[in-house]
């Protein structure tokens, strides 16, 4: 066989290096410097924000960005990278929130202990929900997952009182005890740092998956499923892993949310939330790594700035969404990147 010319390991390495084009490979290396800078900036951010007039509000937005950023990145991995149209991500977020919230309320456990049960519950639910989607595709998956979200929303509005709270969902959920630790003023700082830790861990884990053989397998299954299976990709193994992995982080974000706000309403599972997250992915860049994060940043901040013209914002968002799907299907962020690169390229030449 071709591969049977036995080569010593050393010469193998050089043979690989000299033949491989860096632009062809599906993996990626993390450049240390930008990451370190970004981390330092995010560590310093609360202290800087504190000096600004709307410091508290900025911090609040950043925490929201971290939480929805986790959810959106996970959803992008499922929908953009793997092509599975799951519309139940907000429900999984809610499963995480409700599980952790109910545990603290009913069993009196500390939020730090309870918050681990949220992601576990979300993972279990996602894997069960994932099993039938192995046989379904496209529109059918949309309907199955939307159906689940509606059912869970119904359960949290009409279910037993310790879940539904008479239709209001969970209220007076024990928060993380940060205020008792450092006082009301600086408590928001600790929330920020905890959310940052969550976000960094989730982002790194998703980045690792994205540029690994696992990410390659997801993309292969998306592009041509039967073909991928015939090349050794086990759909069962990879899809269930995907559902479980993403649900864990999504549930994590949900658990954090409930112990941050101290409450969660079933209204979060109305279609509007889902559409907002979808818009982050679509505008940012379907299936790309940085796009959805950028989309999340913009669409977390925008509603707050445009609160006065909220109704026009939603109208505009709808129109932009439809136009992007047609004229820039790969998203606005990759498009912008390409323009910037072209501009820079011209300057260097």
């Amino acid at each position, binding site marked *: 066989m071709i591969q049977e010319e036995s080569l010593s390991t050393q010469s193998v390495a050089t043979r690989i290096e000299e033949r491989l084009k860096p632009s062809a490979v599906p993996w990626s290396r993390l450049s240390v410097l930008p990451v370190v800078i970004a981390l330092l900036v995010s560590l310093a951010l609360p202290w800087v924000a504190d000096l600004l007039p709307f410091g508290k509000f900025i911090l609040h937005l950043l925490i929201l960005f971290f939480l929805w950023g986790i959810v959106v990145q996970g959803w992008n991995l499922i929908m953009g990278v793997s092509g599975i149209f799951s519309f139940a991500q907000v429900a999984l977020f809610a499963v995480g929130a409700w599980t952790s919230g109910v545990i603290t309320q009913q069993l009196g456990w500390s939020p730090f202990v309870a918050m681990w049960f949220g992601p576990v519950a979300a993972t279990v639910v996602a894997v069960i929900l994932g099993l039938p989607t192995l046989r379904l595709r496209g529109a059918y998956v949309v309907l199955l997952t939307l159906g689940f979200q509606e059912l869970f929303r119904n359960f949290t509005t009409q279910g037993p009182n310790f879940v539904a709270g008479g239709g209001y969902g969970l209220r007076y959920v024990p928060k993380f005890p940060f205020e008792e630790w450092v006082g009301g003023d600086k408590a928001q700082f600790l929330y920020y740092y905890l959310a940052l830790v969550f976000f960094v861990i989730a982002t790194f884990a998703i980045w690792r998956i994205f540029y690994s053989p696992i990410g390659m397998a997801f993309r292969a299954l998306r592009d041509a499923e039967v*073909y991928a299976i*015939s090349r*050794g*990709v086990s759909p069962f193994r990879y899809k269930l892993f995907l559902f479980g992995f993403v649900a864990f982080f999504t549930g994590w974000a949900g658990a954090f949310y409930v112990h941050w706000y101290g409450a969660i309403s079933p209204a979060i599972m109305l279609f509007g939330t889902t559409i907002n997250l979808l818009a982050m992915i679509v505008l940012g860049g379907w299936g790309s790594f940085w796009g959805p994060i950028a989309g999340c940043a913009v669409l977390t901040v925008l509603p707050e700035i445009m609160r006065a013209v909220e109704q026009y914002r939603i109208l505009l968002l709808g129109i932009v969404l439809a136009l992007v799907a047609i004229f820039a299907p790969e998203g606005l962020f990759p498009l912008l990147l390409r323009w910037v690169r072209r501009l820079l390229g011209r300057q260097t030449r």
Partner: protein
Amino acid sequence: MSVIFECERVTKAYGGLLAVKDLSFSVEEGEVYAIAGPNGAGKTTLFDTISGVSPVTNGTIRFYGQEIQRRRADDICRLGIARTFQTTVSFDTQTVLTNVLVGAAMGRPGTGKITLEFDQEAIQTALDVLEFCGLLDKQDWPASSLSVSERKKLMLATALATKPKLLLLDEPVGGLNRQERSDMVEFVRKVNQLGITVLMIEHIMKAVQALANRMLVLHHGEKIAEGVPSDVLRDERVIEVYLGGKHREKLSDNGGR
């Protein structure tokens, strides 16, 4: 020569319709074995059942003496059977290299675990295969930007990257022009010379005659003839039942299509 692959009384039914009926044949190590038959004869269905894409209704399929008819498709690939498809397919959004890496990292014997790293052996296999197929220069092209014949070759390359013992080719020269056809025939011969056994579906007789050591003709899911191509193509029943009267001259003319 020893038998590498064997179908014994294989039947495949869709509802009440029998796509493959009670079919038995065996392939010997190192040979090129062709399956011919008109459209709807059950050829691609047969490949689907062999490769595990759809389950057999009845019968046994053996590979190196081991029964494989209940295995999953990805498993069968790692055992050493790789197939191509009649319609040209690729992982369109991915680079040529990544296309081949899928096979090399997921489909070789011993792979298949969920890992975070691309191992060196997979990368090397992928590069070797690309070099062998003459696609190394285009490794960073998106697969969708290749020409039809290149995409066909890429599909074959991803199969080779799984280091198969048996290669199932579904109409390797279909959809190609005259020049590309003879290139592909040459290429399949080169693959066969590496020691890879080839089982192929083809109804372009010229290609069959150029490549196959033995062949089988399928009609309505049943075997109607088997043997050396020159004998089979002279078989009255094959000419009458399968190709119909008007093709008679062409066939005896050694032409096919």
